[in-house]
């Protein structure tokens, strides 16, 4: 038996952003950047670790909206064009920096190499569908893929039981579509939990969920092992909670690894640094500057910023991985002593997008981490929550406490003075959805289409991302527009259905835009 267990959990999620009605759309870049910087590198690293026999074990949530976007042909084609454009700019940049700024040659060459590899993997190995890649990694034992809310709906702020359950059941159905099996675990959106959620999870066949630290520490009764062992709700659903020490080591901008002076600086991007005329062929048609993903500087401790040196950054990532493992071994010994020999479990959940997008060297860190865990020590064993449950280690029964992983630990990020206006509309739609599901038991084909689309609009309106972005103060206009659009479309379709005067052209247009969950069945909302 190892001294302790370690469970890395990555939460990969982006809101469903797909605008076929426009030839280009700024917010679609979120997906494209994440594919280049996060998903492709992670897939590639996990595959290499597996091929090398390093036996990584990672739990990864790939949220239903992300699965749907990754599997969408329109977005796949647009990403291909995006990546090709970036590679073209990189080649152009190599010529320019060779003549004008030779200190950046090395970093530009790095971009050319990684983008070339990425495009090759994208087109040839994964056939432009990364869902297939993740599924292969699960099937070969590297990943334990868990699900999430259907559209990342914040469970405690949804008003009806039917709508709460629909978020989970539709996610499970979507998981079956993409991964061909039942998910064992779920990443509750924003780790938002309140008493009763576990009953819905159990009804949908979910064995465990991820919650924040105080869900267990403030639970009833006192947890014997604190946050370093899972608990089971009285209904048997297991709960794994976040270890703060590892969160801080990676996420803190003050003491976290990503703040190292040799790591890549996120905010200096050629999209803002180079002359507009030069960049124009690589911008959208509106010729507005934006992040393009080519960043040449390291964080540096003081101005001026120094050129990024990939080899040194890579060494740092290796060094940080070693340090991380050393700290885990130390932590495991201390906890094991405190717990009278009981092996501790350290659960470390992070946004997947931290690794590669915000922390460029993050995927390398993961690579080194699992290599060193495998080759350099035998005290810490990497497991998934499912592995832990299968181990047969006894688990205490406890009623967890309401909580989220958002700022201040509760629901303020999503329910506040700036977002409170959203909930009466969302709740009204939730009530109407169940009324419709109860009313229509044998709909005509057109009625079924409209009922399913009404369901999609409700789900998209419930996405916690909109309230988050409004609170965050970034992309406020877009987030607000998205929420309003889905409520608007819900009501247009609702009124059509109620009046019996269905505008099929409009229905078809809305279906073509908001095409998430082709498998949806509105009957899920029935009470």
């Amino acid at each position, binding site marked *: 038996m190892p001294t302790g267990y370690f469970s890395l959990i990555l939460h990969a999620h982006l809101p469903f952003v797909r605008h076929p009605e426009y030839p280009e759309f700024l917010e679609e870049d979120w997906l494209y950047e994440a594919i280049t910087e996060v998903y492709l590198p992670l897939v590639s690293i996990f595959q290499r670790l597996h091929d090398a026999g390093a036996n990584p074990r990672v739990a990864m949530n790939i949220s239903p909206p992300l699965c749907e976007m990754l599997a969408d042909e329109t977005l796949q084609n647009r990403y291909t064009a995006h990546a090709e454009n970036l590679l073209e700019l990189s080649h152009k940049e190599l010529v320019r920096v060779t003549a004008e700024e030779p200190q950046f040659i090395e970093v530009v060459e790095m971009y050319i190499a990684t983008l070339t590899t990425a495009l090759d993997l994208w087109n040839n190995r994964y056939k432009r569908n990364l869902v297939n890649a993740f599924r292969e990694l699960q099937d070969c034992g590297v990943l334990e893929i868990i699900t999430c809310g259907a559209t990342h709906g914040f469970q405690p*702020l949804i008003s009806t039981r039917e709508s709460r359950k629909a978020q989970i059941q539709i996610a499970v159905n979507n998981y079956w579509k993409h991964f061909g099996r039942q998910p064992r675990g779920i990443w509750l959106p924003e780790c938002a939990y*309140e008493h009763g959620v576990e009953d819905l999870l159990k009804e949908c066949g979910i064995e465990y969920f991820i919650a924040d630290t*105080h869900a267990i520490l403030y639970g009833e009764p006192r947890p014997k092992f604190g946050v370093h062992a899972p608990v089971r709700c009285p209904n048997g659903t297991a709960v794994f909670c976040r270890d703060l020490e590892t969160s801080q080591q990676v996420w803190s901008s003050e003491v976290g690894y990503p703040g190292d002076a040799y790591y890549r600086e996120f905010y200096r991007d050629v999209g803002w640094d180079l002359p507009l005329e030069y960049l124009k062929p690589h911008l959208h048609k509106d010729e507005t500057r934006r992040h393009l993903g080519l960043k040449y500087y390291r964080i540096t401790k003081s101005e001026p910023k120094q050129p990024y040196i990939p080899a040194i950054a890579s060494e740092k990532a290796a060094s940080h991985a070693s340090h991380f493992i050393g700290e885990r071994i130390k932590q495991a010994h201390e906890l094991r002593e405190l717990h009278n020999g009981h092996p501790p479990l350290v659960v470390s959940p992070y946004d997947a997008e931290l690794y590669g997008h915000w922390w460029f060297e993050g995927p390398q860190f993961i690579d080194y981490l699992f290599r060193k865990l495998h080759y350099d020590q035998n005290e810490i064993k990497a497991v998934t929550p499912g592995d832990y449950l299968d181990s047969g280690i006894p688990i205490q029964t406890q009623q967890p406490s309401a*909580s989220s992983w958002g700022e201040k630990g*509760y629901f303020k990020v999503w329910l506040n003075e700036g977002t409170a206006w959203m909930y009466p509309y969302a709740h009204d739609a939730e009530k109407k959805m169940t009324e419709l599901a109860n009313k229509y038991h044998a709909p005509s084909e057109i009625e079924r289409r409209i009922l399913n689309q009404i369901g999609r609009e409700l789900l998209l309106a419930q996405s916690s991302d909109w309230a988050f972005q409004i609170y965050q103060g970034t992309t406020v*206009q877009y987030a607000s527009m998205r929420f309003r659009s889905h409520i608007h479309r819900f*009501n*247009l379709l609702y009124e059509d259905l109620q009046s019996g005067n269905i505008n099929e052209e409009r229905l078809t247009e809305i279906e073509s835009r908001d095409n998430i969950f082709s498998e949806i069945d509105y009957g899920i909302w029935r009470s």
Partner: protein
Amino acid sequence: MTSTIEAKEEINIEKIIGGVSSASFILKSEKPIEILPFPAEENTTEPIEEIVAEETIIELDEEVAKRETPLFKELAMPILPELEKENRLYLQMQSPKRIFLYWSVKTNAYKSLTKAFGENAGGYTLVAKLLNLTKETENIFPVDGEGSAWFDVADNTKYQTEIGFYSPSRPFVRVAFSNEIETPRMSPSPNQDVSPVWNVSTMQFAEVLESSGFTQDAFEIALTSHETEDSNTATETIYARITGEPEAKFAEFEMNELRSVLLAIAGGVPFATIVDSVSAELSAWLSLNPEVFEAANVMAILQETFGEEFGTFVENAETETTGVVFGASRVNFGNVRSRFSFPNSKTSSRNNF
């Protein structure tokens, strides 16, 4: 679980007038009811309005939109529907200390009231009741027919709200009631597992909390580990031993703040920093007798009272970090109770990442 049931319509004035009133329709307060002004300045009875930032991230190209079909334009300019005027009352928990209510009342509720009471209806006022179901108390606030409000509340408590017509001398006429919510506790449970397999001593649980990063909770739990059952009494006892003053003397201060001071002193924070960080009243009192708050003395008394192991979770107390994280996340570190967080200080806060 917080009820997720939509507000239920309860009014049936005809039944009340017909003498068929029942307790489920008419709630009488057992205590005299005082109509209060609306709580806290930030609370509002204004209809909920969208707050839109001035920035414009996407601008729908109007020229393009004009060239497109009416359908394109219709979908590009989303309009929020007017919500039906119905009896709607919904309560949501924002945090253990703050909850949110929105409501609307059917216009015919007023008509029914007038029809039922005739000229006497003038004595009635539309109010919202905030019911504390745990303590069985209630507060009443005059409201408009539609609006929203934030309430400062207690943690670990059940709440429900009602909208209805109130008259000082007549039965309350309930129009609708909301779902129930329960605010969570903001500290560890006082209860140990009844199973001996999972039972953990108080001091060991304090160490478990410490190992999980919840140092202040660990400290408070540790204070209850010996002789006394509650941390307030324990805090008073410790201060009495440190200062030689009677325990009753310390009741005038906030106990959380007193505990924070103990933890900070034991953790090696300079006394001058502590004095600058606490409330004016406590600062003045601490400054009267600084020598007794020397760290070694305080630690010795804590260990004398609670045992040698008490010191394990006040070691290495200097590290404290801010709440800034990499990326766009708003991930919480707020429940990492900082060793040196002072409840009344403007500058201090929990260790919020």
